[in-house]
């Protein structure tokens, strides 16, 4: 899969937070495959996404949203406009 499957706004946001180029933000990118995606960056990404799309994640779901695909799916589920 390629980075085109990730909406531009989410791709750019995650690229900023994880300090990588937007091209690297693919659906498969995850906490396990990216060194800079540690638990604190994860929280920072969650906060940035909440602010960007005006949503609030269920805190119990937060630890599970550890890949771009999962984050994206959760956002779609919550009705966010990506």
């Amino acid at each position, binding site marked *: 899969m390629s980075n085109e499957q990730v909406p531009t706004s989410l791709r*750019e*946001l995650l690229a*900023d*937070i994880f*300090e990588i180029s937007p091209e690297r933000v693919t659906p498969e990118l995850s906490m396990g495959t990216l060194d800079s995606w540690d638990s*604190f960056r994860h*929280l*920072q990404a969650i*906060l*940035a996404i*909440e*602010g*960007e799309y005006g949503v*609030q994640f269920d*805190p119990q779901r*937060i630890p599970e949203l550890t890949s771009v695909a999962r984050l994206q799916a959760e956002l779609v589920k919550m009705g966010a406009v990506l």
Partner: protein
Amino acid sequence: MQSDSERRELRREIKDAAARQDAAGAVACARRLMAESSKPADVQFCATALAGIGDALREQLGTRRLKTYVVRSVTVEPMLASLAVEAVLANYVLDLEVGGYGAYADELLNFDSSLVKFHPDLVLILLDMEEIAGRLPELCAEGIGAEVEREIEECVGRMAQLLRSYRAGSTARILLQGLVVPDCTSLGDVGEANLPHSLTNAVQRLNQRLAALCGTIADCVFFDVDRLAARAGRARWRDARMFLATRLAVAAEWFRDYARGMVRTFSTMYRAPRKVLCTDLDNTLWGGVLGEDGPEGIATGSAFPGNCYLEYQKYLQQLSSRGILLAIVSKNNEDDAREAFKVRAADLALSMDSFVALKINWNEKADSIRELAKELSLGLDSFVFVDDNAVECEAVRRQLPEVAVVEAHAAEPWRLVEVLSEQPFFDAAVVTGDDVHRVDEYRAQAKRAELASSVGSRDEFLASLGIVCAFQSALLAPLSRAVQLLAKTNQFNLTTRRRSAAEVEEYAAAEGGQAVVVRVRDRFGDAGVVGLALARRQGDSCVIDSLLLSCRVIGRGIESALLAYVGQQALRSGAKRLVGEYIATKKNAPCADFYSDHGFTRIIPSEEVSSGPVFYELDLTASVLTSPKWIALEGNER
């Protein structure tokens, strides 16, 4: 919020500026982006870009690098990008290290904790209610509060022990964050307001006590986070969902205000407040244009909109009462302005006498400010300029980048005080008697200048001043004043080392060490503590680490008297040589020849070096340092 394309353009400019290591360009664009966008991703983008030009910031903008350790009990990591960016915008680069969640007591008490081993310049202590005063909510909740006061005492005692223990082993500057008054309590709004031992009252008292505690510890400042929370709305300051799930103590939307408040607070330990406010007259100090509306037509006084300007005048009067000098810089006829102050005296909170200097003429304002700096013997970085005219503001910004420019919005005169108070440049955690008397001192300066022009020779003039120098240990004078001098003296400062209070204490306590201040007065007034020297013994030499003099007393021989005193004390402690050091900076050229002028010989280094410290020595057994004959000495044990 600006359009997305402008945001992208700014990001591109930041990236380009960072790529070519253009520090000023990157900072300017980052400042604009941060003013327009609150997106966390943009904050992180700026943090990343600015982190990559740390060296350029230091070399090109003199940005101060601070090794900073965060002692915490809550989650701070998502906020660090905001902290790093706000710090750079205030000209600091923070090398951040974050401690463990439960480790604060061990870190502060244990002499080989990770905090101590880090050797920080700055320690930020960010603890939550649970750690500082965990029992307080429960003790306040029953309404009687029999044990509340004792608990507050114990909390303050515990914190005092932690701070003093750490202080004893480190010279790092310390910021201690206070508590936020909880918004939701079981006593409810009415109980919180009326019961003397409510949690609201208890937390406010505890904060006051912690602030007072910080005042008793060298290089320690209290960070009143409750003030920020109250401004934002305490109910929204913390996101309970995120706090309970992740221990994030401040909601993400306030990261910038929080970071800015923290930077503003610790800045007071590193830089002195600005000293002079230059105000425009028309549509700034009063409404309307004097030349067109006449003295009766300008707006000032108790009725709207004149009261907007009256509020501004009162604010200036308050600044003046703590030693900020006021000056007028206005394009007007001076006679017209004088008449307006006379005719409208009852409607003005300030009189002509409230100002230490007037530049009311048709010259360029940048030239007027330059002249003021010369007349008051102050650096341009001590000046603030307030004007409603965007063109005048921009001209001053371009010609005198050191001057802080505040643009007053003529259409919204009620915002003037708010706009001014948002700015950090008059911030001070400590106000000394010397600050308060500064305004009188500058008036005395004007009288001296008058006398100088009427008396023939320089020596005759100096003799007629009746100068008295009193020397004393820096520990006996207010220590805060010594540290203030170290922090802000630039022109007559041989080494420009910004020593902390703890370091001054070390010099005073060391065997053969000296930490001496000089207090100066003359027939026109008491200038207070204006000079300082730090020295210590090395073998049979006494080495002067720091020697400085406030610029407002330069040229009266006080520096010679101070050096003579240090030499004499060195001789008494058994030293045979006095060693002086000069480190050139952009500003201290006036004292470049200080040691050679006093008979010292330059120590030629074994290898020729073009920059860095230059050392001088004087054989104390062969030559005598003398104090100028026109200065009377006190506290000199001869």
